[in-house]
């Protein structure tokens, strides 16, 4: 099925080494707040990956990913209080439920594209957020909503973490492995039939239709995959936070996510990791490490988004190596010139 090239082997080796470093070397040398932040980076890179697939691979934009993340967190909290499901099963069930909600939000995509699709997903996400904010996150009560009006909630246990990864560092490793599996899932999709169908749809829908691509199936498939990822990420987030509340998700999050994903780069899955870093690590660095007002980041997001839209459609992932390469060429040329000039003068 796949022919293995040397380049692919080298790449796989590099990725595995990086993963090993992140899993074993990093946690030992970092403080507790760094571990928490890096866990969030991993979680948000999965959400970004979902949006990256939708926009970069299929050409459909969805502003509903953050809402699906919140849905995932809500479902995971409810299931954790209401059932005794083991954590891996909790992840899968949450992902599946988010998948159903996501496909429902994505249904209009069969008729709309471009600006209108962006607007309708934004509106659907807004409506879902209003509903979740009004219901509130489960706090140990019964019924569908899992809410209780009891004043004393001190006995409320946090959302369950996997039995083998209760401590923060262990949970970080667990999250990284789950996220790596999500990236693998995305890669498998891109490298096989769905990936080719998506590329055909992105380039020209009529051409894809003429070539016999089942547009309805593959569009909904993409929405299902992205929503599944957002749901899994929501479950991971709920277990990380312990007792999630609706207040921890802001209205502007789906807009900053879009900016971060575009700045990171939508055409490469590495862009998703850059987007996760931008979304979670950079604000942490600004606030805790450098003492800069984190709101500056919004301004940087805005300027970065303009730059990506106008001059660098591939985002940082493509632009940075390009810029570094041209810088390298410039330096080499300069050195050569100096060397040649030096040779002449002696």
């Amino acid at each position, binding site marked *: 099925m796949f022919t293995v090239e040397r380049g692919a082997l080298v790449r796989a080796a590099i990725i595995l080494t990086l993963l090993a470093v992140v899993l074993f070397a990093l946690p030992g040398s970092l403080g507790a707040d760094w571990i928490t932040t890096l866990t969030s980076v991993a979680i948000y890179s999965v959400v970004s990956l979902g949006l990256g697939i939708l926009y970069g691979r299929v050409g459909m*934009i969805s502003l509903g990913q953050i809402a699906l993340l919140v849905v995932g967190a809500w479902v995971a909290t409810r299931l954790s209080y209401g059932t005794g499901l083991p954590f891996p099963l909790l992840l899968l069930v949450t992902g599946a439920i988010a998948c159903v909600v996501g496909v429902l939000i994505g249904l*209009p995509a*069969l*008729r*709309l*594209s*471009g*600006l*209108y699709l*962006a*607007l*309708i997903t934004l*509106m*659907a996400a*807004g*409506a879902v957020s*209003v*509903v979740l904010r*009004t219901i509130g996150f489960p706090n140990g009560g019964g019924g569908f909503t899992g809410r209780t009006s009891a004043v004393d909630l001190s006995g409320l246990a946090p959302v369950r973490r996997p039995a083998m990864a209760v401590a923060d560092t262990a949970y970080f490793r667990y999250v990284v492995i789950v996220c790596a599996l999500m990236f693998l899932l995305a890669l498998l999709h891109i490298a096989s039939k769905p990936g080719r169908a998506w590329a055909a749809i992105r380039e*020209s*829908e*009529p051409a894809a*239709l003429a070539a016999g691509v089942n547009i309805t199936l593959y569009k909904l498939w993409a929405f299902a995959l992205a929503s599944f990822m957002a749901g899994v990420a929501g479950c991971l987030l709920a277990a990380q936070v312990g007792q999630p509340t609706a207040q921890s998700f802001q*209205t*502007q999050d789906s*807009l*900053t996510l*879009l*900016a971060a994903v*575009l700045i990171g780069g939508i055409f490469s899955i590495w862009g998703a990791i850059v987007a996760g870093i931008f979304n979670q690590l950079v604000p942490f660095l600004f606030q805790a490490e450098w003492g800069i*007002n984190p*709101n*500056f*980041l*919004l*301004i*940087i*997001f*805005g*300027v970065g*988004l*303009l730059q990506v*839209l*106008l001059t660098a459609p591939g985002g940082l992932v493509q632009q940075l190596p390009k810029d570094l390469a041209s810088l390298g060429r410039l330096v080499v040329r300069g050195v050569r010139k100096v060397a040649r000039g030096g040779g002449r003068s002696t």
Partner: protein
Amino acid sequence: MDSVIGLSVFGVDWTFLKPYIVLGLALGGAYALSGVGLVVLYQTTGVLNIAFGAVGAAGALISYYLVNHTSTPQWLAFAACIAFGGAVSLLYGVVLGPAFAARDPLVKTMGTLALALILLGLMAWRAPAGGAFNRVLTLPTTNHRFELFGATVNWTQVISLAFAIFLTAGTTIFLRTTKLGTAMRALADDREITATLGVPVRRVEASAWLVSGLVCGTAGLLLADLFTTLDYAALTFLVISSLAAALIGRLRSLWVTLAGGLAVGLVQAVLAPYGSITGYRSATPFVLSIAALLYLSRHRVVSISRTAH
């Protein structure tokens, strides 16, 4: 005179509902105002300005600062808000408009998203919300009230509704009768052909940006007053309600946009006294826009054109 047994609407007394109707119409007027500004700009330049709320909010904050921390006369401070809206929009349109002109509507819209993020960042940095800060921007007209059908109405609310109707009518006449209006309608049809015919396309676009910016500043000022607290985040995301109005008008019809804005404001306000659904009333603009978008997309055509939606 109200009878002793008041008229009941779904279990809520009619007299109790009146103030909400007044508030709903006033807010609806402001949404409709913004909606008309959005539609005119979208038709002329193809840009759906997501930053509409952010620009208005920033203008209102400037007014607030001028009123409370300087000795600027009030009317000048309020004029500054409107002027700020016009200036920022014009600047964006002149500097970045041409760069985005040939791109598809989604990319143009994301460009204004960048403007919104920049303004949000600036506002969050210079005027952080929460804590002891509870800014209030009150227009002088708010202090003058009168009774109408047993409900108290203030002049800001009247101005909001009246200005929305006036702007809709004025813009309709302007687009039909003046040279600039004709040029704008031509641009809405086809930018390239309009340019070929010798219309100064960029100047027409710049005037659309300026006018919609002035409308945006006015709407920001009115909404900051009508919403009682000046919260920049809430004001920024009020653009959703205006977008709903514009979408109900299919981004094309000014009068339907006016009706849509009033509907959004009215439904949202009137649901407030109904205990069981009051928490969900902020979903009104979302639900109405979804309905409008679904209606828009009821005929699906596969098109080979690159710019087709």
